[in-house]
């Protein structure tokens, strides 16, 4: 296909604004998938994605569309993740496109992620087609949304397409807009080959599969390709396009989007953002600058029973095949034994990995409270990075500590501005700016410690704003901060896995809150369990889990022994999910309790 008949586009939206449904309708309309084969929300293929209603791994689908001008076009739809944890992946998929559909819910209006994604798209010089979705809903207010578009972004309202992805209304309009307004790719077929990897996944039969956008030149089956970041070379065994199932092709030319199979053994060989070239005639300059995704949040993952340690390592190995952003290294804890310190892009990423480990690999895990990476400057002038409270050096050797800050953008209806300010203030936020997108909607900008963001910040924000607030944030840098280590003692012994790093001003209230919370989540045991919170040698809070007085089944259920057995087995199963620390049985949620403390 000649480049002039190719359009590469993506869909960007705030979470829940209907991106996946819109993608489904487009696939259906262009006949890429028939209604019959259409599982609800075709592009979200992982169970978890469907359950959570978010798209985790982006994919690319090739559609063919005969436009009203009579010509046939290839439309490559590149899906993007909708969550802030994955903004680097969003930016890579944007780089593979020339245009973007900006989907806005007709009843919700513009949200923080809409703007964040839009700015990213503008950074990549994409042609923006605003799509106002869900116009069939009774509370839809497209006129207000159009006004928001004009006022806040300066996009002329008459460029917006009104659709209902649910009913299919307006889908053809979108396709015509794509053909008419999104520029065709302008690659140089004669130049040395350059293709950008914007996604990859691990297939147990084929190895790592890279999804790439060819910018210049051509890649053919049999070519020896080279990764420009690592210099590693592989022979291309297969090329394909997704329609949405893999269809083999012999070559991919400029402007094409497809997948590339070249006996690469894991996804670390196919780093997102890397440039692929041909070894025999390599390009000199890579495409956009490649940077590895950097973990921002760390936590310990430990098997509840030590015997599962090897299984956990194997599972992490397997997950990493598909998730280059996941990092892990062995660590050990006095309380929990052997486990792994794992790094994640953010909390959602952490939760997804944890859930997949438990669900797909049937592991029983303890997750310790997530921590950010602190920069600890020692009295001797050297600096160390600490991502685990347990490895904070003794206070006497610390000169000062720096913690990561983010710039947070929060959008909220006018009436909740006060509530947002309260929450941000309470979380050590520094006010930067406030502007009104429309007379009713404000955008606030704060500098906030990342450590506060991962402490249930978004949930708190949501509950204080009746669910209206939307949040986006990006890393801004490190700042000096007065933080201290808070220790927890159970039965008089410190439990390293329950330690956390908190700001000095909040240490006592967090310590009290955590002790209270632990009292609620640790079940009563044969003996009473004292819980203490301490900073250094100073005890700042104490609670007691009272001894269990009674745990007995009165009846024998008329000889129904299997019923009794089942009841006891259920009880025993619950116990298995707990970790024995000395003589204290501690449930998994205890290790995350700090997140729920205000």
């Amino acid at each position, binding site marked *: 296909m000649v480049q002039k008949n190719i359009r590469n586009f993506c869909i960007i939206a705030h979470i829940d604004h209907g991106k996946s449904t819109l993608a489904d309708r487009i696939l259906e309309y262009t006949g890429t998938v028939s209604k019959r084969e259409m599982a609800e929300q075709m592009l979200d293929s992982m169970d978890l994605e469907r359950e959570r209603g978010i798209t985790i791994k982006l994919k690319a689908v090739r559609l063919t569309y005969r436009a009203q001008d009579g010509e046939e076009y290839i439309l490559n739809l590149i899906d993007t993740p909708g969550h802030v944890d994955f903004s680097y992946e969003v930016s890579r998929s944007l780089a593979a496109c020339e245009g973007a559909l900006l989907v806005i819910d007709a009843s919700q209006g513009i949200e923080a992620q809409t703007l964040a994604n839009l700015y990213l798209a503008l950074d990549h010089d994409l042609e923006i087609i605003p799509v106002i979705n869900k116009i069939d809903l009774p509370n839809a207010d497209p006129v207000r949304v159009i006004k928001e578009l004009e006022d806040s972004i300066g996009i002329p309202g008459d460029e917006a397409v009104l659709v209902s992805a649910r009913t299919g209304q307006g889908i053809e309009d979108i396709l015509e807009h794509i053909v008419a307004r999104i520029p065709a790719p302008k690659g140089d077929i004669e130049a040395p080959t350059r293709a950008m990897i914007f996604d990859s996944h691990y297939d147990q039969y084929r190895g790592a599969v890279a999804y790439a956008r060819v910018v210049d030149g051509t890649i053919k089956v049999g070519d020896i390709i080279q990764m420009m970041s690592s210099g590693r070379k592989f022979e291309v065994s297969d090329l394909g396009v997704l329609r949405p199932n893999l269809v083999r092709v012999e070559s991919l030319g400029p402007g094409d989007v497809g997948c590339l199979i070249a006996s690469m053994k894991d996804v670390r060989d196919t780093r997102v953002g890397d440039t692929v070239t041909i070894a025999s005639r390599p390009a000199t300059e890579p495409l956009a600058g490649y940077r590895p995704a950097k973990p921002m949040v760390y936590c310990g993952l430990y098997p509840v029973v030590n015997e599962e340690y090897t299984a956990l390592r194997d599972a992490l190995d397997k997950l990493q095949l598909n998730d280059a952003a996941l990092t892990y290294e062995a660590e050990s804890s006095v309380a929990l034994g052997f486990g792994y310190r794992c790094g994640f892009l953010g909390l959602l990423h952490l939760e997804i990995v944890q859930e997949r480990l438990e669900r797909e690999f049937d592991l029983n895990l303890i997750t310790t409270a997530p921590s950010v990476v602190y920069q600890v400057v020692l009295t001797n002038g050297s600096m160390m990075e600490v991502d685990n409270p347990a490895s904070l050096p003794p206070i006497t050797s610390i000169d000062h500590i720096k913690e990561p800050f983010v710039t947070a953008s929060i959008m909220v209806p006018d009436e909740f501005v006060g509530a947002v300010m309260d929450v941000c203030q309470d979380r050590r936020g520094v006010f930067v700016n406030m502007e009104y997108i429309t007379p009713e909607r404000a955008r606030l900008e704060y500098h906030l410690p990342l450590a506060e963001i991962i402490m249930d910040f978004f949930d708190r924000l949501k509950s204080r704003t009746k669910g209206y607030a939307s949040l986006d944030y990006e890393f801004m840098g490190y700042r000096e901060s007065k933080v201290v280590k808070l220790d927890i003692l159970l039965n008089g012994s410190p439990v390293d896995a329950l330690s956390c790093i908190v700001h000095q001003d909040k240490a006592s209230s967090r310590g009290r809150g955590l002790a209270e919370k632990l009292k609620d989540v640790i079940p009563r045991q*044969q003996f009473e369990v004292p819980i203490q919170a301490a900073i250094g040698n100073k005890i700042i809070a104490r609670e007691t889990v009272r001894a*269990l*007085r*009674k*745990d*007995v*089944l*009165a*009846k*024998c259920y*008329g*000889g*129904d*022994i*299997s*019923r*009794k*057995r089942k009841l*006891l*087995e259920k*009880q*025993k199963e619950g116990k298995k999910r707990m970790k024995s620390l000395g003589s204290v049985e501690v449930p998994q949620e205890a290790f995350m309790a700090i997140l729920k403390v205000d």
Partner: protein
Amino acid sequence: MGVYVHIPFCAQKCNYCDFHSVVVGDEERFSSVADNYLLSLRQEALYYRKIWGQEPLDTLFIGGGTPSLLPPDKLAAFILFLREELPFVKHPEISMEANPQSLTAEGAKILKDAGVNRVSLGVQAFQDDLLLAIGRIHRSEEVGGSVLALREAGITNINLDLIFGLPGQTNEDWVKTLEAALELEPTHLSCYGLILEEGTPLTTWVNAGLVEVPGDDQQAVMYETTCRMLKAAGFEHYEISNFCLPGFRSQHNLLYWHNRSFIGLGSGATGYIQRLRYRNAADVDGFMETWNEGIPYYEESATVSIEQEMDETMMVGMRLLQGVEEEWFRNRYQVSYWELYRGAIEELLQRDLVEYKEGWLRVTPTGLLLENQVSSAFLR
């Protein structure tokens, strides 16, 4: 070995109870249902007669539901039928459950003549407000009359079922209940801590915050009160919830605690025959229909492996205060429980939940109130 018969009929459902029973309608309709049900029971008994073989049966327990709702003559005829057709010993223990309000001296006499020699009365409490709160239909003053009627008929082995931890019940209420029960001079007392069973109205109300029941700590106090008072009154505490005068242990319930085989008959009943554990579907109409065709209607049935049976023998055996004798277990299974459960037993010993003395492993006073942790230690 014994036979359990389930009579799943009640005049009214008590709101804490999750045993299988249906509320009977008017007398005429119930009479025909009862006839059909007893007929099906006979067919089921004949079915198991073949499978059971000749092993002697020492006990028969008729439970419910409310067995005393059945016309005494019909129930008596059924008991005689069972004694005729199944290999019962000459003088089996024959127990039946009864509601205090549904017993007359004449009825008791008929049953006594059919062999009933032990009656368990569902008394629960001696305060009418408490009885009302749990949906019982009898009044506390009726209990004395029932006991008299039984004695008049010659049935002197009498158990009273009592419950502690009822909505609004205080420890004083419970002490009064125990005193009133002792005054009637029963041979046996079953004292159950209330369990909030899933799906019962009471559980729904408690979960909704409409009704409050004493918590575990209060139940523990009531239980300790029970042990103390009944011991002082000369009762032997022989199983977690059961107390008796010397020589009056429930032979049928001992069968369960020794994990022996038994034939279970009736809708919703469980049985254990040649290591097949079965539970009949809790469906009165279905029960009658399938036995018309002469086939069982199980909700669940599975053969228990010998390993599983050993676990279960320990699980139920440890409910007995005398414990489980090492020699008895070894004679039965040709292996010592020390060999099978050493790690678990040692942990229990270390936690002071059990003790091992003169060849018997038994719960300690601490272990008694935490018995689930003892029993579950034997589930591999």
